[in-house]
């Protein structure tokens, strides 16, 4: 038996239009909701970090303990393990800043009233990725020289006739695949997660308010329950994506620094 959910219009699922939310103005120069959230995230992170750094104690307070834990996590299990104990130090500020910024902005997805992940708009991850892109190329070219940097893309011992092909593939990897996937991964994860939450919330609301009989209205509880479960799942995704982003950044830098490809 088919349940008739509603007479008339029917449910229309949310589309990509959900992600375009201008606050002031419209068109290319509008001030949008993710822009406001990005400003807010910086306004939250910067004072907290300055405050914690100014009041360092031998016996750490709760806040200092949490901050140091996060810092140590990025420093040791990302920076030190991926780049190597000898050269990871100059990259710690970059990695730690990126991690915090991405983490806070991803958690905005599930904080009531904010509820919008900044990085679901492709412009924001592209900006972060451009920094990473510049860093790993400049670092590699400084280490090996511009010519040497391109030369070491081809591993030694490859037969001569196959060198152009390998070089071409490596060139695409370094200049197209890596930056594109880095930006797209973060954006698509936050985008998909938010869309899922919106679908469950709107679907539940529609079933509750417009349902044609009692059974459908009660069934909306299932939709709301899934909304709550997925919200917790999104916390995990937010952490994981921040971790993956800095992990890949460290991996690309380490790859540019390495003597052999």
């Amino acid at each position: 038996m088919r349940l008739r959910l509603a007479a008339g219009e029917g449910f229309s699922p949310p589309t990509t239009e959900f992600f375009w939310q201008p606050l002031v103005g419209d068109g290319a120069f509008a001030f949008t909701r993710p822009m406001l959230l990005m400003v807010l995230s910086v306004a939250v992170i910067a004072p907290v970090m300055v405050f914690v750094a100014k009041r360092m104690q031998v016996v750490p307070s709760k806040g200092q303990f949490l901050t140091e834990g996060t810092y140590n996590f990025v420093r040791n299990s990302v920076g030190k393990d991926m780049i190597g104990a000898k050269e990871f130090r100059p990259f710690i500020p970059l990695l730690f800043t990126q991690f915090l910024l991405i983490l806070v902005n991803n958690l905005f997805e599930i904080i009531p009233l904010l509820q919008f992940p900044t990085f679901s708009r492709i412009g924001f991850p592209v900006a972060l990725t451009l920094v990473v892109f510049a860093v790993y190329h400049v670092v590699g070219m400084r280490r090996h020289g511009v010519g040497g940097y391109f030369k070491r893309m081809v591993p030694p011992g490859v037969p001569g006739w196959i060198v152009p092909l390998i070089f071409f593939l490596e060139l695409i990897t370094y200049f197209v695949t890596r930056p594109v996937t880095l930006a797209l991964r973060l954006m698509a994860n936050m985008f998909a997660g938010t869309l899922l939450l919106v679908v469950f919330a709107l679907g539940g609301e529609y079933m509750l308010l417009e349902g044609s009989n009692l059974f459908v209205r009660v069934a909306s509880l299932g939709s709301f329950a899934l909304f709550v479960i997925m919200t917790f799942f999104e916390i995990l995704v937010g952490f994981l994506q921040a971790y993956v982003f800095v992990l890949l950044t460290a991996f690309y830098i380490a790859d540019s620094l390495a003597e052999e490809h």
Partner: protein
Amino acid sequence: MTGNLNVIGYGLAAIGPAIAVGLIFAAYISGVARQPESRGMLQPIAILGFALAEALALFGLVLAFIL
């Protein structure tokens, strides 16, 4: 019934990365089960492999929306 064929295409395209992610974590789990000390070393590798395999599914997701 109306809808978009892109969504079916995306569903099919997601099978490959889904199997890949499953295989990666299966290998990670059996590695840790055999040698629990190796957990710290295997974790970044597993997450890295997961991220690379997942990228394919996300390409599909983005293309399903923009095409």
